[in-house]
């Protein structure tokens, strides 16, 4: 099964290949969706030739529009595209297994070492590092939105921040606010003819 037989009904991907491809990627890739998705694209489009470039871009677009981790969504869609729902389940399994195994082991280790004073200092310093990382990510994301100079989306961002930080509104309502603003904007732009 090296992708030699290709016809309309027969796809070159075996179930084992589907599982192993996503398992390997999520076992060795540090850094979340923005790192793993380009690697998936490289693997599925260039290396295996399962999907053409344009369709892969659409698959990534769907993954970003759909809730949940982007790497998870992309693997589900690639699995589905290749071998239907069973394919999707296998690529999904390949994606979640490494995290399950590694993190549950670390969870046990954490309980065991967290009272050690060296570990405590290490974790304390790392917490500070992680808050720098998160706030930096927020800074980059907010800057991207502000630089687009679209007053409506800047306003949405400001209102959402006031709601969640100052008024401490339930996060579900803040998300609903975002969805509704997006829908209104979409309908409004559509009426004007062009988005």
């Amino acid at each position, binding site marked *: 099964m090296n992708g030699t037989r290709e016809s309309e009904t027969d796809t070159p991907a075996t179930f084992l290949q589907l599982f192993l491809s996503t398992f390997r990627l999520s076992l060795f890739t540090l850094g979340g969706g923005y790192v793993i998705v380009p690697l998936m694209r490289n693997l599925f489009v260039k290396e295996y030739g399962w999907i053409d470039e344009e369709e892969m871009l659409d698959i990534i677009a769907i993954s970003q529009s759909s809730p949940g981790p982007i790497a998870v969504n992309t693997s589900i*869609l690639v699995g589905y595209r290749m071998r239907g729902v069973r394919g999707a389940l296998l690529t999904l399994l390949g994606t979640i297994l490494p995290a399950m195994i590694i*993190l549950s082991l670390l969870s046990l280790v954490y309980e065991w070492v967290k009272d050690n004073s060296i570990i405590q200092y290490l974790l304390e310093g790392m917490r*500070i590092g992680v808050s*720098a990382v998160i706030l930096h990510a927020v800074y980059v994301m907010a800057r991207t939105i502000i630089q687009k100079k679209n007053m409506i989306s800047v306003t949405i961002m400001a209102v*959402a921040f006031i709601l969640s930080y100052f008024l401490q509104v339930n996060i579900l309502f*803040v*998300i609903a606010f975002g969805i509704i603003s997006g*829908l209104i904007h979409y309908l409004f732009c559509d009426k004007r003819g062009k988005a």
Partner: protein
Amino acid sequence: MIYLELFISFFQVGILSFGGGYAALPLIQRQVVDVRGWVTMTQFSDIITISQMTPGPIALNMASFVGTQMGGIAGTVIATVSVVTGPLVLALMFAIIYYRYRELSVMKGILWGLKPTVVSLIATAGIGIFTQALFTGESPSSGSIGTLLLFAAGGLLLVRGKLTPVKTILFSGLFMVLWNLVQRLYV
């Protein structure tokens, strides 16, 4: 029953986190810290830290970690499966719509409004983690000049693009260990 609670909480995390990256962070905080009280804010920051140093999306990592803590192996499996159940159903639904109509514009419209919203939600969670790590945590050095300097140095190196996130986190951890050893020896 813990398994049912794990399912309900992590199902919500999965189905409501739009936009990838840190989008799941505020949702996870709400579920595991605020609503359920499964972990403290300090532990929450620790899990994020561990999550940054290991492969896999943050939502999956958090589900595996908390699931194991709360319900052993069964907890791990249930929490992880719960996170991906919603995304699985929705992604398949969108895929079917896409292959039939080649049309995604309503979803893109919704996402357009969600993007700035999610940035603000992550900002709120980030500020919470920041104040906890620097000022209100349990450790004795909270609010000290050393921790503030460490944060400033980490932030500066990130902005200048000199260090990757993983290295920033590792170096701040190691620096804190050294700082405390030096203090112990000389003070």
